[in-house]
């Protein structure tokens, strides 16, 4: 049986999940729908409790949704379709009594693939510790091993929950380049959740911002930043601009920020010029992802 958009690596359709009962019930996901296009690096953002981990666990088959469905490469999520995914869900979890090599060999056998583990160990940067027991691993090494385990079955898509957690700055850079490399060189779709907005902004093509189990915003990173860009004007009479656009203009950075669409800018400039307001400088100021994230996730609080 097929479901979802076949162009999407993963399609989430109207997924709801509530934990607990009665007064203690907590709705982790509330009718969430999203599509992760094949070949892209997709970032999942949201404050704690937004539903990111629950969504990843539902995709992994660890938690069953109350309603809605997941499809993976056009097939309903099941054990067979999940074999096309590599996963690193939350903190990496390994057996301290096994070595890194034994872990990778174990997952390779389990995935029924003829994977050689040596190249994967080298690729994730723990080749030197292949025969050490995981009990002696730092969190960063476990994180690398987790990525290795996600890659061992030659997945078409990988799901990474906080992949740079516990890594040092060098490790974060390496992991970033590995993720980009996986998408660009190997054509693997990457779904990652992260609290590091700077990281997401650098490596993701598309993002979804979750809030209270719902979609707060989604789209291409550039497109999302562009949609929240503001027009900044340095004029001789800022007060006149503020008064003429009372609900759409704010003073800031020595000028005036105006909330308009890109196509409205020429008309605004013409209007100001006709009103004999001198414009010294005008530019579009794009927010960074952190500003977008904060504005989207704090909307309810405000």
């Amino acid at each position, binding site marked *: 049986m097929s479901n979802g958009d076949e162009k999407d690596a993963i399609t989430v359709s109207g997924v709801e999940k509530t*934990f607990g009962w009665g007064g203690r019930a907590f709705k982790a996901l509330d009718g969430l729908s999203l599509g992760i296009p094949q070949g892209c690096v997709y970032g999942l953002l949201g404050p704690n409790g937004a539903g990111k981990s*629950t969504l990843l*666990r539902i995709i*992994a*088959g*660890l*938690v*069953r949704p109350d309603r809605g469905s997941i499809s993976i490469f056009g097939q309903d999520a099941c*054990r*067979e379709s*999940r*074999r*096309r*995914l590599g*996963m690193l*869900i*939350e*903190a990496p*979890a*390994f*057996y*301290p*009594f*096994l070595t890194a090599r*034994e872990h990778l060999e*174990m*997952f390779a*056998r*389990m*995935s*029924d*693939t*003829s*994977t*050689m583990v040596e*190249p*994967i160990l080298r*690729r994730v940067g723990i080749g030197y510790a292949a025969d050490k027991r995981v009990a002696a691993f730092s969190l960063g090494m476990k994180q690398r091993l987790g990525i290795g*385990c996600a*890659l*061992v*079955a*030659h*997945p*078409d898509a990988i799901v990474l929950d906080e992949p740079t957690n516990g890594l040092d700055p060098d490790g974060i850079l390496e992991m970033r380049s590995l993720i980009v490399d*996986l998408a660009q*060189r*190997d*054509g*693997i779709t990457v779904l990652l959740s992260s609290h590091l907005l700077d990281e997401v902004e650098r490596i993701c093509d598309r993002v979804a911002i979750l809030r209270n189990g719902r979609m707060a915003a989604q789209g291409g990173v550039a497109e999302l930043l562009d949609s929240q860009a503001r027009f900044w004007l340095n004029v001789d009479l800022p007060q006149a601009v503020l008064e003429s656009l009372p609900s759409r203009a704010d003073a800031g950075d020595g000028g005036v920020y105006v909330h308009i669409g890109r196509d409205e800018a020429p008309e605004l400039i013409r209007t100001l010029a006709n009103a004999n307001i001198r414009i010294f400088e005008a530019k579009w100021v794009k927010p960074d992802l952190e500003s977008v994230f904060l504005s989207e996730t704090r909307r309810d609080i405000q």
Partner: protein
Amino acid sequence: MGQTRSGVGVPVRNPKGYPVNALFSTELLKLQRQPGVLFWGFLSVPATALAFKIALEGFFFLRSGNFPQGQTDILLSAAQSLGIAGNPIAQLLYVIGVSSVFYVEYRFLAWRNLVPRAGRFPLLAAKFAVCLLWMVIGLVLTVVGDMILNTALNFLRDGTSGRAPIQAGSILVLSAAFAIAFLELASLAAIAATLTIIFRSMIAAVVPVFLVGIACSILQAYFGAAIASVPMPSFAADAARAWLFAGAEGPYGIARFGTLLAWLLAAATAGSLIFWRQPLNTE
């Protein structure tokens, strides 16, 4: 598919893909890498039973200067030694072993690695199969140990050949005793596994099973054969053993086999159903 992924070559994948052998060998490896669990959970019972028997024979020798007249048929003696499966302390050790095998995934939050790759039911089946395999190995060691000890004692007693007489039909009795012991331990394993899954805890599985085992022993000592009709695994196994060594006449023992089998199937089914629906949001 078919294109190079992760820079490590083209995957060869079984499309039907129930990697049961892989899961079984994985579970074996995990248990072998935990020698404490393997020994105390599965091998300490036959080792202790043999050591205890050697100590008793040695004590008798020290006291009287010669070895006691033992069981003449070493197969029958081995069949009787399998009664160790009904000992509450032996059961405690086996429950610790079985529960450890299942609890390791909750303890190290490792279901998240396994469930997406292998599905739920094959994982449980592989774990249960590994427990049963080591239980069988334990029972075989009990039998072999008892036979070697009896052969050695016969040799020391007679000073001649170590061969003891074997009565016809003893092999059948030994086989039946093995089946009873195996069914008793298998139903115990299924109950321990189910409790571990329900409570996601080892202690919550071990303590109730041990307490019930002790309670059953006390009730059996108090009520004797009268309690054999209560459909509990330990009563059924003891009754089946008594029936077997008394000559195995009539359908009585078969009914006790049925009781053990029913417990095994009920516990295994319950465990599978519970795990099938269990949310692994925190493991």
